[in-house]
């Protein structure tokens, strides 16, 4: 498994490249450092979570503490129960072209099932940008329908069958298209590109930007090079029908008749930066 990891890292190094900063790129500015209010500001953030178990979104000092725990179902030993999130959404996603977050995974548990070859996946932290759709302009879409929307994501994840040392997570970037209204069916458009690894109790930075002039999203971990998530111009036929810019915890627990598998992540969200024009005073 380690060999595979190293191979993936090697491959990712080959496809990652320093991406020149476009002349039109805005400067990043602080969107949120949790210093202007004792609670989450409703004018900056809209949050929600899916069916699951323990959860948390609370401010403590200058960090936002998030937790999400979800157990899997026990009716079978095949597949996973689904994907479930606790998400923090920026209020103005159509203004966001760059998103950078300082994050820390404080605790992570992901367990699998001996009888189920499908591993549980814990996405302890992820940042998403959904800005464009490949549906032809004028095609009617119901509010909230994700069909045709393209989601760029950097995810910090660990699988239940990981051979990495405890607390080590893989960071990868990908671009995928939602093929149905709920986003449960998707097609991979670009990536996944391995950006590196992080460990629990380590503050790291994820950075995602949309560069429509060069038909790509760019993704980076810490001071690493930008990885390009390229797409064809046809993918950007019109704005996303259900745009979002989010920070989330997401679990995909495997089904298991022997007993429920578990995904449980606690993270700290430190500063969040966006392109300056997206900042809400």
């Amino acid at each position: 498994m380690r060999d595979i990891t190293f191979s993936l890292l090697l491959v990712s190094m080959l496809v990652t490249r320093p991406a020149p900063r476009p002349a039109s790129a805005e400067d990043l500015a602080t969107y949120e450092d949790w210093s202007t209010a004792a609670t989450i500001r409703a004018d900056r953030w809209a949050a929600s979570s899916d069916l699951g178990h323990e959860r948390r979104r609370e401010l403590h000092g200058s960090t936002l503490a998030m937790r999400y725990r979800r157990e899997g179902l026990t009716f079978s030993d095949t597949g996973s129960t689904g994907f479930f999130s606790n998400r923090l959404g920026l209020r103005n996603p159509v203004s966001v072209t760059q998103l950078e977050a300082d994050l820390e995974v404080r605790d992570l548990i992901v367990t699998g099932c001996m009888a189920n070859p499908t591993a549980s996946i814990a996405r302890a932290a992820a940042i998403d940008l959904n800005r464009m759709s490949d549906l032809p302009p004028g095609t009617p879409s119901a509010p909230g329908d994700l069909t045709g929307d393209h989601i760029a994501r950097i995810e910090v994840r660990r699988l239940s069958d990981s051979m990495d040392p405890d607390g080590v997570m893989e960071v990868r970037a990908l671009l995928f298209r939602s093929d149905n209204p709920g986003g449960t069916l998707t097609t991979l458009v670009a990536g996944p590109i391995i950006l590196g690894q992080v460990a629990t109790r380590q503050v790291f930075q994820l950075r995602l930007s949309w560069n429509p002039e060069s038909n790509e999203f760019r993704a980076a971990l810490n001071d690493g090079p930008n990885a390009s998530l390229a797409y064809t111009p046809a993918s950007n036929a019109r704005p996303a029908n259900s745009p979002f810019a989010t920070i989330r915890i997401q679990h995909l627990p495997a089904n298991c008749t022997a007993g429920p598998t578990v995904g449980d992540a606690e993270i700290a969200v430190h500063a969040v930066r966006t392109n300056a024009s997206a900042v809400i005073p």
Partner: protein
Amino acid sequence: MKRPFAQAGWISLLAAGLAGLVPAPAAVALEPVAVYESWRGSSTLNSHRWLVREDGQNQEIALGIQGHRLHMRHRREGGGASNAGATTGVQALLAQNPLSIERIEVDLQVHNLEVSGCAANPGTTVVRPARLALATFNDGGVGVGQIGDHVILILVSAPADALEAGSVLTVEGDLARCVTADCGATVSIASAGTVTVPVSKPFTLRAAWDRANHQVFIGVSDHPDVALRYDAALDAARARVPFAALRTAVTTANCTAAPTVADVELAVREVRTNVSAIIPDR
């Protein structure tokens, strides 16, 4: 006007009797209750017993076990674009075996409560620290989803817009009929009336369905249970969407002057159900 629970129940029963409801008979033998959950067997929720759901867009939320209690916190701010309308957020704890539950009792205590309304949009910023709901039967009415389902609802509400030193919680109990597919709207079939409880004191909510005798029971703390009878013909089948749930809800008015706030932290102590509904520790 606030009336004692039992007294109000009898008044409502007399009124309801005109519509086909009759006063309840003397106590009947229901299956005894025992502890369904004491939050002592594990430091995390047992998914065989519980599932948690969040609805609406909230800001802070927290749900977890601390010190043999389940703490449920829930906060949202209102929008600032106008002085009209309001938005509700909900956090619900759903029992996983609702078809087995005929009696449910929960011991609760409000640990924190904050309400800040809007002078230009009064009366709609409200915290409802608890609502215990138990779905019972469906009346066979035409419709989809939960339309026609009848639900025992015990709703605990704090005063709208602001709390004062002597504020109390109001507890209302009803047998209600769902009139929309998602049961977001209901009409009361019979009411047990209202009682009040101090904000900071522990209290108990009790709901029971005595299907054989076409009645439900609603109780609060030391107040005697109120029986609400219904026409046997209404019980055409089990509820289309069976559920037994405890939830917190916060509603915040829109306000241009400043964000309204509704914030509640509820401690769920022991939960008891009829014995046959209990799911063993794992």
